[in-house]
């Protein structure tokens, strides 16, 4: 792999054991053999329905969960090794998160100033009250909360959803991170706000040269944001490749299904759709073989035998499917 790879996941698996007595010993297969790499400055979109393991992936990368199996390597070092407090702090400075729900992810007893001075204090980036204040204001302007004096003393409940999400973005970018994990940052926002938040994130990652993992269930949004897209389903990766390639030349039936289910009026109001039945499978007893096979319109007998390997469809475009073309 090229040397500018900053994050690499190889065969990462995360199983959550079930606690109830009756089902002791069984596990939820939240992530199974996820492998991908991320280059510096790249924006990677992870697309999938709820329960597909997107959020678990972000939480494993950010050291909230430890993987059951496999390795996550960030800048050449194993993320889940035993770390000293200072090293772990340094890692959390480099890898920041933006959460889905701006109503829950900001401390409601703190003002915007209180929320934004914490990253500076914890990571000891700036010394002195005045300097921190200056930095906070600079950050607020950068995320479009201008003039900053108007926002700095407000509590989260005095801000709209979009403004709150901007504060979370300011908090994530305040410490000059190298990787930002954004877990559906726009799904709780009003439609009229989504675009400007997405643009805000794009602008910041361009000007600060950070890498980005953008998690979403919206295929069109992922296309707008990312360089590359990973399609996840029931804890497994089904397709990965350049964003345009994955969407326009979708190979895996599931990607095609997602594409056909998405509302897109410009491609014609009466276009033909792929049809499917059923729901996302149980992750406690996932279907044998390809996890999508019970819903797949092109299912073959081999599909239920074993999980197909990732295979290269075209240049840098991989899919986990046995279909010929």
């Amino acid at each position, binding site marked *: 792999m090229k040397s500018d790879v900053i994050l690499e996941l190889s065969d990462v698996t995360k199983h959550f054991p079930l606690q109830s007595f009756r089902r002791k010993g069984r596990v939820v297969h939240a992530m199974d053999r996820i492998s991908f790499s991320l280059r510096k400055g790249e924006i990677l979109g992870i697309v999938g329905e709820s329960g597909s393991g997107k959020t678990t992936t972000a939480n494993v990368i950010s050291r909230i969960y430890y993987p059951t199996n496999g390795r996550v390597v960030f800048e050449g070092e194993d993320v889940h090794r035993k770390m000293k407090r200072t090293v772990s702090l340094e890692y959390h400075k480099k890898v920041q998160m933006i959460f889905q729900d701006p109503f829950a992810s900001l401390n409601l007893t703190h003002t915007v100033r209180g929320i934004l001075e914490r990253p500076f204090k914890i990571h000891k980036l700036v010394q002195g009250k005045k300097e921190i204040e200056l930095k906070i204001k600079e950050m607020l302007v950068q995320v479009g909360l201008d003039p900053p004096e108007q926002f700095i003393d407000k509590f989260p409940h005095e801000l709209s959803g979009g403004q709150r999400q901007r504060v979370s973005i300011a908090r994530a970018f305040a410490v000059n991170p190298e990787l930002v994990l954004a877990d559906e940052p726009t799904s709780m926002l009003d*439609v009229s706000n989504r675009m400007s938040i997405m*643009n805000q994130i794009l602008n910041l990652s361009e000007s600060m040269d950070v890498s980005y993992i953008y998690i979403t269930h919206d295929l069109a949004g992922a296309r707008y944001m990312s360089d590359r897209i990973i399609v996840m389903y029931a804890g497994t990766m089904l397709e990965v490749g350049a964003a345009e390639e994955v969407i326009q030349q979708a190979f895996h039936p599931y990607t095609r299904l997602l594409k056909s289910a998405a509302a897109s009026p410009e491609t014609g109001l009466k276009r033909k759709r792929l049809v499917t039945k059923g729901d*996302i499978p149980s992750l406690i007893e996932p279907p044998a073989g390809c996890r999508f096979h019970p819903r797949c319109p092109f299912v073959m007998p081999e599909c239920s035998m074993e999980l197909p390997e990732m295979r290269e469809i075209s240049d840098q475009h991989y899919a986990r499917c046995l279909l010929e073309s």
Partner: protein
Amino acid sequence: MAINSPDVVLSCNNLGAGYSIKAGYVKAVDGVSFEIRRGEFIGIAGESGCGKSTLAYAIMRLLKDNAGISEGEIIFKGKNITRISGEKMRSIRWADISMVFQSAMNALNPVMTVGEQLLDAMLAHKHISRKEARKRALEMLRLVDISQERFDAFPHQLSGGMRQRVIIAMALLLQPELVIMDEPTTALDVVVQRTIIEKVQELKDVFGFSVIFITHDLSLLVEITNRLAIMYAGRFVEFGPAEAIFLEPLHPYTRGLMSSFPSLTGPITRKGGIEGKPPDLLNPPKGCRFGPRCSDRVDRCISAYPDYIEARPGHYVACHLQEGVRNEK
């Protein structure tokens, strides 16, 4: 805008509704007029807080104690139901107008089986035997693709999409003339959402009911509805055929909403969205409600509220700029 023709199922004339809260009176729905014909699929799109759910609850006459219809009237099949008694409304509600609620996941009673809840709705309205009711309930479940064994299941044993389909079955059980769907698929995944919408369209063709579909997802509405209303701060700003609105939106707010959705197949262009936030409905702006956020505003927009103009046949818009266009012509 209302045209009186025999197949109009429901019409609202200059409907206003709002809430009294400590800080004052919030007029959440203001001067809304529209009519819906038999078998029609109408969409209402708008951001949260624009009054679209209040409108739905007003039509169902389900507004809470601190809220009420302040003006205008609701005519259902030639009968004014704006102020009829709760008793009379109860016989119309569900039998003639039913509703699919926003969080259908929570709309089911968790301690009753699905079948029991379906029977309840039916026995409350119709004088039929339990056996007959059960037969019909099973038939309805079959129509929404839920197997018969699920009749005795509890809601927690069903997936989100299945629960949503049960709710839809319940709304259609008494074969109503009109079904109001308030964000019925928002909490669901795209694929499940698509199957459910297709199911609704299929059933609509079978039973011939009309649908008012409320959501914030404009691109979805453009695909599935006949006519479309864009709601902003309590008012319809644009109302007309869905395709016409999509191809040539006339109101600046509609254009803003359109540019808030990234496209799946078109060229990738940086899109703007809309700056600012909706007005405080406690003190709405004097002129056009969208005026303060509008990038094309002129002086008149701040001073006077624009009237509806029929820009094209059946396509109404409330915008001063469109008046100018028409006068020039």
